[in-house]
């Protein structure tokens, strides 16, 4: 029953989407507003249908309907309910359906929330949103269907197993017991709280960029190339960016917890495929501000939006099609070719549309660049750096390996080595800009003025650097890195401080009221400072944990210790071959961590051996703001019961990465918050709609 419900709601969603496209385009061609309204309703219908389909699949997994092939492949009777829920996106078919459902929700929201304020763009927005949606629905209906069920073909001699949605003639359902015992279940690596949030966050981020893309296409298709499309999509860009940032950080945290190599980012092609949209998305965030404030860079902004969404589609294509080798690969499937064609068509058409409009002279800048140090110039530099990072990362993950494999017949891997050689200078430049740009003004800034604003932050940075130097940081690279990162953080703090002090001088209010009012009155500016502060803290964590990581590996007998930095790791005992409730076998070591002779923690690092043959190495961690002491049980020989091999990492400042991201989230929420200074109705009437009292000519 659930399979039929899911299958047919997906089909209805597809029909609604196609109808919406036709109705919207008809409505705008024939000037029939009613048709566009009808299209909008169809968008909402497709959303409801897809959500129902996703819910049907979810219920099937939770209720253990193993006859459904997808449920059979991602769950088994021994899985706890929590992971059953996350199994919805555990494999190709389900994750595609989940993606489509999220996309349809965003589409419905985008259309209904912007209905009044952007009526002119709506038909094209609807058409674009639904065109992308119908592609993904099509994938679910024709290539990777999550609602297929196992049947035994009683007609054939060997009782062949079939996989279709609807019951074939002469086929019966296999026995439930047999299905349940052979069900595969999710890989143990996916049984972590990270599985609950990392994929949904990433998908929300990816799908979120569809809305600005749709508005951009709508602007180009309709000819309305003013800032309307930007105003409508600014918040979407921020929200999508936030989810994408969270998804990436959570992915790192998850890898840190379960992969057992003491790190959080491997520069693997699939990781980088999710990083690419983030890079251009950040560039986009900044450059749309230029168009909003100064009416410049119109062509570039449209191009950036197209590039961002194109890299989203490319990323999901590369991940799901096995284009390059990666640890994250889905199983090989027939999905590669349709996704490739979709990516190519989308990118080419959008860019061609942009170039056509540009050739018509509709994308003229309204003002000129006056001063090299003006904020718009520095934002252009910011864009340059992010696009350079985009190219460098794309080249290392895809460009070079593909080129060498196709044209030089050699398979190469560009790994951490390569990325850590080419990206640090660019990241450094990014942080420098992050420090300088907020201090420069729109239009013009003199070097002297900038210097004055930089004075206080520079002083604070110098003090911090001296402190770091005295306490042992003595490599030039680290000093430069820290210096630049701290400078940008201090700029944000000093700017917030200046605003706060200014308010205190003018208003007679409590400090807390001043502080909150500062953020409430100008959320975009101060939210932005807070985001920068978060990025700074993350940067400090990244530098510390990358440049100062220590590791060692030793085999210890019971009672022996290994020494690293000023820590002592003492191997107390081992509990070998423990059998857990879900059938896995665990080797658990008991370990004491001491520092300068004092016991600071007890840990139980372990190795899990699953019935499927997979093993997981779970570290014991002692986390403080200063560092993580990360202990792995790498091996244990039962024969020589005495010795076990441990690998220990000291990761300085790594927790700043996770804490910094909280500040980043807070800053983004503030920056997105609607300003209730001027009601949107009144604000928009000045720009878009005809003044009241004038009849439509």
């Amino acid at each position, binding site marked *: 029953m659930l399979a039929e419900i899911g299958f047919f709601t997906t089909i209805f969603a597809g029909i609604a989407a196609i109808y919406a496209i036709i109705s919207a385009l008809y409505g705008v061609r024939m000037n029939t507003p009613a048709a566009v309204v009808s299209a909008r309703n169809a968008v909402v219908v497709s959303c409801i249908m897809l959500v129902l389909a996703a819910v049907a699949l979810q219920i099937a997994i939770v209720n253990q309907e193993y006859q459904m092939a997808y449920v059979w492949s991602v769950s088994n009777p021994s899985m706890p309910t929590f992971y059953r829920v996350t199994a919805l996106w555990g494999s190709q078919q389900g994750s595609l359906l989940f993606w489509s459902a999220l996309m349809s929700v965003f589409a419905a929201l985008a259309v209904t929330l912007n209905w009044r304020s952007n009526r002119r763009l709506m038909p094209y927005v609807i058409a674009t949103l639904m065109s992308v949606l119908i592609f993904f629905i099509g994938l679910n209906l024709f290539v990777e269907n999550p609602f297929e069920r196992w049947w035994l073909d009683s007609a054939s001699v060997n009782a062949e197993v079939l996989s279709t949605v609807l019951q074939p003639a002469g086929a019966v359902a296999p026995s439930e017991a047999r299905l349940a015992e052979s069900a595969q279940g999710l890989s143990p690596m996916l049984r972590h709280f990270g599985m609950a949030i990392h994929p949904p966050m990433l998908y929300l981020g990816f799908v979120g960029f569809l809305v600005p893309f749709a508005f951009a296409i709508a602007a180009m298709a309709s000819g309305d190339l003013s800032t309307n499309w930007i105003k409508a999509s600014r918040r979407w860009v921020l929200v999508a960016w936030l989810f994408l940032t969270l998804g990436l950080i959570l992915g790192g945290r998850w890898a840190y917890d379960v*992969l*057992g*190599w003491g790190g959080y980012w*491997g520069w*693997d*092609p699939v990781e980088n495929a999710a990083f690419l949209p983030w890079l251009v998305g950040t560039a986009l965030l900044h450059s749309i501000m230029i168009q909003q404030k100064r009416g410049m860079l119109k062509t570039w902004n449209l191009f950036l939006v197209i590039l961002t969404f194109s890299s989203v589609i490319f990323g999901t294509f590369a991940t799901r099609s096995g284009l390059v*080798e*990666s*640890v994250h*690969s889905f199983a090989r499937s027939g999905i590669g070719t349709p996704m490739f064609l979709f990516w190519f068509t989308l990118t080419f058409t959008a860019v061609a549309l942009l170039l056509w409009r540009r050739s018509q002279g509709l994308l003229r800048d309204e003002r*000129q*660049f006056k001063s*090299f*140090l003006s904020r718009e*110039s520095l934002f*252009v*530099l910011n864009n*340059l750096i992010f696009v*350079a990072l985009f*190219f*460098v990362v794309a*080249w*290392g993950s895809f*460009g*070079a390996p593909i*080129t*060498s494999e196709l044209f*030089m017949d*050699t*398979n*190469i*891997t*560009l*790994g*951490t080595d*390569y990325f*850590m*050689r*080419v990206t*640090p*200078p*660019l990241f*450094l*430049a990014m942080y*420098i800009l992050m420090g300088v740009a907020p201090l420069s003004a729109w239009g013009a800034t003199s*070097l002297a003025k900038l210097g004055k604003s930089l004075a206080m932050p520079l002083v604070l940075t110098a003090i911090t650097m001296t402190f770091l130097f005295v306490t042992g940081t003595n490599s*030039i*690279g680290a000093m*430069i*890195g820290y210096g*630049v990162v701290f400078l940008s953080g201090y700029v944000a703090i000093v700017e917030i401080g200046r605003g706060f002090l200014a308010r205190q001088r003018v208003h007679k209010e409590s400090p807390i009221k001043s502080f909150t009012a500062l953020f409430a009155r100008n959320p975009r500016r101060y939210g932005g400072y807070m985001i920068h502060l978060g990025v700074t803290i993350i940067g400090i964590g990244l530098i510390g944990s990358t440049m100062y990581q220590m*590791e*060692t*590996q*030793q085999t210890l007998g019971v009672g022996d210790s290994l020494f690293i930095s000023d820590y002592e790791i003492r191997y107390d005992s081992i509990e070998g071959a423990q059998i857990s409730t879900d059938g896995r076998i665990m080797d658990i070591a008991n370990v004491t961590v001491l520092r300068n002779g004092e016991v600071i923690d007890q840990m139980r690092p372990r190795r899990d051996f699953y019935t499927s043959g997979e*093993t997981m*190495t779970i570290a014991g961690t002692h986390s403080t703001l200063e560092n993580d002491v990360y202990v792995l049980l790498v091996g244990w020989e039962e024969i020589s019961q005495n010795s076990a*091999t441990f*690998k220990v990492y000291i990761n300085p400042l790594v927790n700043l990465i996770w804490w910094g991201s909280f500040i980043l989230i807070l800053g983004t929420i503030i920056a997105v918050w609607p300003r209730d200074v001027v009601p949107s109705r009144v604000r928009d009437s000045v720009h878009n709609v005809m*003044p009241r009292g004038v009849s439509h000519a």
Partner: protein
Amino acid sequence: MRKTLQRLIILFALLALPVLALQAQDGGDVPIPPETVTDDQVNDIASQLYCPVCENIPLDTCGTTACDDWRYEIRLQLEQGYSEDAIITDFVNRFGDRVVGTPQDPVLRALSLVTPVVAVILGILGVVWMFRNWRTEDDTAVPAQQTVSTDDKYRALLESDIRG
């Protein structure tokens, strides 16, 4: 303006160079004395290599028995006194270029490392050229500004007409 631009580029380069220089430092042509080889020494080399049969997993973190074997082979080679470079080259010869993080072959190495640097430099030059274009447009843009203000006046007339 030009001077400021120059100064900023120099500043950028000054900051970038030390970092680049640090990354380029190379570790190991020195042979390891054949005493007891520690796990750390093995991992030091293994961390620069990738598991030949897994997908993109460094050799020091890979947990399969095959990887255990390969790390054992590296240990044997270290005990026999091979240098780090020799061990890595040998591994590449046996398993192909994909087992090392930056290609050994000079052509491929250039392809990988030089291309992004060239692209970034081209990007910087492009932005510089763009800025200079805008500045020269700025000088000739005065008539356009006048047009904008007449447009405003025309608009104002039109709107007052509409209002009746």
